[in-house]
């Protein structure tokens, strides 16, 4: 949400062209994420899980409030180089905005996968996430790693926001689509990036068909119903693994 708003502010408010505004928005939100970690989230490392959960819930409420104060509660549209352009692809008309989203997502997923599996920083991040004390002993600067993780996470969220902005219209509740994304991740299975993609496509199809065939209103909550069903019946989703404490 913040990414989309910042980009809008730069493009419409200051008349910058799309790509530099995109880049600046992502970097700015990434830095903000790192700063957030350094000041606030660092203090709750090691506390039980619900403390962190509630902290992020509180922070989310603060950001939404801040956004509605700064930019008001109207809905904005973001002009992009892809707006209102379409191509005919084998009998189907595809809007460039959607193509941009698909291409962007695939590129991003490939980059993140390569980063976490093959680069030193990525592997160090996985280590820090699994056992912080041991990571310290191995010389990994855990605090800086976490700030970097938050920066990347915030940046990726900002990219998602900017990509989504032309399709979904910018308002303070943009972030709630993250819940549907969570449903997609759970359906595909945690720990599996291709699973998340498959899950996302499946949820999209389910929404489409429930909008066409099922009573009114089911379409909006179809993703959530799928989430609850998957969790109740097969929590590891299609491709995922479930972690467990070793005693």
């Amino acid at each position, binding site marked *: 949400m913040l990414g989309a708003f910042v980009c809008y502010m730069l493009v419409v408010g200051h008349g910058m062209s799309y790509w530099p505004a995109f880049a600046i928005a992502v970097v700015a939100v990434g830095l903000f994420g790192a700063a957030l970690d350094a000041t606030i989230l660092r203090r*709750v*490392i090691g506390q039980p*899980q*619900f403390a962190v959960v509630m902290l992020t819930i509180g922070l989310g409420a603060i950001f939404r409030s801040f956004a509605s104060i700064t930019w008001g509660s109207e809905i904005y549209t973001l002009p992009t180089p892809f707006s209102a352009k379409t191509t005919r692809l084998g009998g189907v008309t595809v809007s460039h905005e959607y193509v941009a989203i698909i291409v962007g997502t695939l590129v991003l997923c490939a980059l993140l996968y390569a980063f976490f599996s093959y680069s030193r920083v990525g592997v160090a991040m996985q280590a820090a996430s699994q056992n912080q004390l041991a990571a310290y002993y191995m010389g990994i600067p855990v605090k800086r790693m976490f700030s970097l993780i938050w920066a990347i996470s915030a940046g990726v969220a900002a990219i998602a926001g900017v990509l989504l902005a032309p399709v979904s219209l910018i308002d303070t509740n943009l972030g709630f689509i993250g819940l549907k994304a969570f449903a997609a991740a759970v359906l595909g299975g945690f720990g599996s990036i291709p699973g998340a993609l498959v899950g996302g496509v499946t949820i999209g199809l389910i929404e489409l068909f429930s909008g066409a065939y099922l009573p009114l209103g089911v379409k909006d909550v179809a993703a959530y119903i799928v989430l*609850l069903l998957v969790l109740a019946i097969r929590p590891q989703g299609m491709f995922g693994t479930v972690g*467990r404490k070793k005693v």
Partner: protein
Amino acid sequence: MRFPFKTGYDHDLGLFRDPVQRRWYAALLVGTLILPALVPDYVGDISLVFIYGLCGLSLMVLAGYTGLVSLGHAAFLGIGAYAHVYFVQDLGLPWVAGVLLAALITAGAGTLVGLPALRMTGVYLTIATLAFALIIQEVFTRWDTVTHGLKGRPVDKPVIFGISFANDLAFYFLCLAVLIAGLWLTANLLRAPTGRAWVAIRDSEIAAQSMGVHLARYKTLAFAYSAALMGAAGALFAHKIGFLAPDIFSVLLSIQFLLMVVVGGLGSLHGALYGAVFVAMLPVLISQARDQVPQWAGQAVGVFGKDAGSAAFLALDRFVKQPGLEPGIFGLILVLFILFEPLGIYGRWRKVQLYFSTFPLYKRATFRRQKTYMRSERLR
């Protein structure tokens, strides 16, 4: 320091630690009974505090004692409210039957939510409850025959056994009675094996299983009981606010309940009540601050000159009159409490008590929580 002298096992089984504590609670009861005489203008607000207390109790059982954090409890409140109103106003059932049926139905919904809860822990469970809340909100909007959808439906005042509870004072005592009943039932459960099993599930699921605790049964029970309390609270809530609409039971209300439990102090019944007082009083404080703070700022800055003073007043006035400010303040308080006072108001009260009772030997580290650094430890 006081050393309680115990003469039998029943001493530990009782609800109160010693006769002194019992007298304090009796005094508290007398106080709540005569409160309407002392502050007659606020009787309606205090009834809301009691209703919120019941809600806090419900979430405390689930999140504080069993360790299952739920972001969807406003949905249970809504189910209880709509069910009760439907039974009493549309079907004409007696009031008590309406409340009991509402609690039962909400308990059923709680069991439904409990099913995915058995497979997921921590933040994933919270997100699942959030999804449930959004589904239920949509159901409220679409199920016109029962809920009248977005138009909303007005709620009559309660009539129990032919006696009308329309005036504020009677409603106050009704809410107080239901709250005390809820407290008594919950305290009974918590000192019995069920309560111990819940605490065991919170602290170490695997050890609890090895000691014979059937995880699925007790987690589902926690959800069902918590939802039942919420359903009863929903019935009273419907009468209090007088008009039901789907957007009352939003995620923001769930966050307020969570705030109630965290601010009050997780893991104690007192915490639920402190939190309820805090959250019920907060909108009142905010609206008063909205009027006062710009004035004070204007006067303070006005020391430097009248123009600067009025400019400050106008700027601050415009800022605090924004509609989107309230959730931000809730979020801010939640964040501050988690960072600086994770044990909540009750925790702070316990620390103060301990300070005075062990003076001058008090150590700040007594309440420091164990930090777990391994992800597998937190995964449980």
